[in-house]
């Protein structure tokens, strides 16, 4: 949603801002700036807070991991909302995700699926985030570990591995998956920072 400077401080636009959240959900996009304007309006007028919309915004923000969108939204949610369900649950989920405790994450998530009923792709986004972290950390991983992190097993897990094998060059050897496309490994061992002097720096040192 395009907002001019003035629009950011106009409470009459609350309905438009709320409508924009639904548009983001159906269009599969996320607009942090617009959502923050809405949360700030709720912060100014707590009695005008629409908690359904508030939850939607936070769920969408959580889907932006590894971005910090969720935290940035939560800064604007008053404490008393944070202590109550369902926001408290979302904060717990965010905490587990940030800490890479995916086992615990999926446990909690299984109990509050209703929160993202109207937001398609929530679980997929979390899996994408987990895969992103896996790619940073592992060059190979046990298939069972992968399944645990993604909360996938059996056919679903096989399907994902097959898909990635085709797209990102994963290779399966027994129980171990070789994750392709990992450039970090080749960089290992090279030192960072250097004690090299630029040519231009020599002049002044020699008094020239």
């Amino acid at each position: 949603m395009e907002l001019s400077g003035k629009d950011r401080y106009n409470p009459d636009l609350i309905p438009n801002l709320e409508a924009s959240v639904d548009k983001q959900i159906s269009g599969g996009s996320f607009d942090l700036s617009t959502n923050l304007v809405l949360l700030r309006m709720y912060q100014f007028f707590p009695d005008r807070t629409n908690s359904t919309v508030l939850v939607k915004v936070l769920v969408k923000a959580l889907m932006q991991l590894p971005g910090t969108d969720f935290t940035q939204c939560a800064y604007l949610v008053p404490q008393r909302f944070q202590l109550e369900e369902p926001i408290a649950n979302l904060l717990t989920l965010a905490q587990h995700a940030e800490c890479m405790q995916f086992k615990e994450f999926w446990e909690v998530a299984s109990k509050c699926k209703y929160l993202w009923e109207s937001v398609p792709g929530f679980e997929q986004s979390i899996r994408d985030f987990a895969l992103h972290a896996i790619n940073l950390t592992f060059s190979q991983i046990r298939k069972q570990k992968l399944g645990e992190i993604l909360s996938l097993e059996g056919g679903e897990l096989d399907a994902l591995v097959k898909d990635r094998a085709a797209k990102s060059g994963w290779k399966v050897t027994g129980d171990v998956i070789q994750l392709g496309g990992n450039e970090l490994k080749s960089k290992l061992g090279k030192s960072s920072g250097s004690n090299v002097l630029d040519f231009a720096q020599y002049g002044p040192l020699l008094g020239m």
Partner: protein
Amino acid sequence: MSSMEHGGAGEAVPDLVKQFVVYFYRHIRERNIYEIYSMFDSSFQKLSDRYFKNQSWPTAESITEFVDNDHVFCLLYKEMYFRHMYAKLQPTLDQRIQSWETYCQLFGIILNRNVNMQLPNGWLWQMIDEFIYQFQSFCQYKAKLFQRTAGEIEQLKQCGEVWSPLAVLNYLQTFVDKSGIVAELQRDGGKSLAETEGYVESGKGGGSNVLKVLGYFARIGLLRVHCILGDYHGGLQAMEPLDLHNKQGLYTKVTLCHISTSYYTGFCYLMMRRYLDAIRVFNSGLSFIARIKQYHSRSSGYDQILQKMEQMYALLALAVALCPAGTKSLEENVHTSLREKHAEKIQRMTRSELSVFDELFTYACPKFITPSLPDYSNSGANTSSEAYKLQLKMFLTEISQQDQLPVLKQYLKLYTSISVSKLADLMGSEPEQLLTLLMRLKHKTSSSADTDFIVDVDASTGEETVQIGDIKMQKNYVEYYSNHILKLRAICQELTQPPRQQQSAQGGW
């Protein structure tokens, strides 16, 4: 007692005050920027310290006869009158409301009529700064319902627009819009503005810097208001397209503005976990203060400069503890002072001591506000620290998520390759937990890139191993020594030169 009661034209005005307003008014009419600023910054303080330590200045009504009943001048005087009252006395609710009305009248004139005045930029900055300060102060006043009388609460309920967050934000945004400053900054990146500093040459028959410069400063005001609301993204957004990399920008010409900009921008980055950016901004702010500090020891803002400096060092310590790789971008003098002030605390923070993070954050954070109306039905309520507690809690949550990571990093530095089970033993955890911890380390440091390792699994034995790259941070001795060689050379040169006095005595320079 409200100012209206003891005010009025009958009040006796001390001669020195009379003289002060007469000259002040004349300088403003003559558009003498230098003299205006000197009277605003220095004379006003001196007179305040001498005659008005414990009482307010004479009311605007009582001085109006000495200044041709000039309406705009009286509003400017009133603005200073309330500024002094906020600094030295406890303003009552009536006075807070009157101060708001003064700003509304003054801003209304600046926004809607052509003001034919030139005011020093330093004053215009302090106008925006004070406006936000009084807003902040009003929010605190409102939040401490338990200190208010029943009458005050009744009056607060009627306040409506007075010091409301939206009204404050709208004033600032209106300055931005009406001044056309955005278009100008986009056109040339603020180059022409920096050259003229916004002043209009007097030869051209009038003209004014006031609206344009207020528009420019209002962006930094918006940054601050967003920041104390907890909207860090919005704060940085409101400042666009003001360019912090532009070392010549207008904001650099007004010391307090420059410092405020660095402080709030850096704080926003810190809360957005952009630690490297935060470190860069604090570094440039602090090295600026180190350069100019000595020239301001007599100015009215000196205490504020020192306070913001100490706060920025504390915030820098937080950022450096969270992202040690950032120290590389620190200038040497900033780095040295940081070590002198906070070396021990940084050590303790890298051992994940939450209490130190808490202490530094509490000392250095801005004064957060709760923008919503208080619950008037609960007259014993005190919600004044609610906003601060929320931001602190969120910050400490982030810190606690990084618990154990510094220790893990230390171990990784010792090996080039270590099995996961052995490393888990060293960390006193289970291998599965260790994998979680390794993933967390990657996630939390991915923006600063100061860890370099990868976990692999031997397909035949199933053994998991951490392969570690060289993550040792090499000290950059080259830069250190070359800087010192240059310094030494400069000193030697100065010593071998003939003394300066002799030269100037010969009629040189």
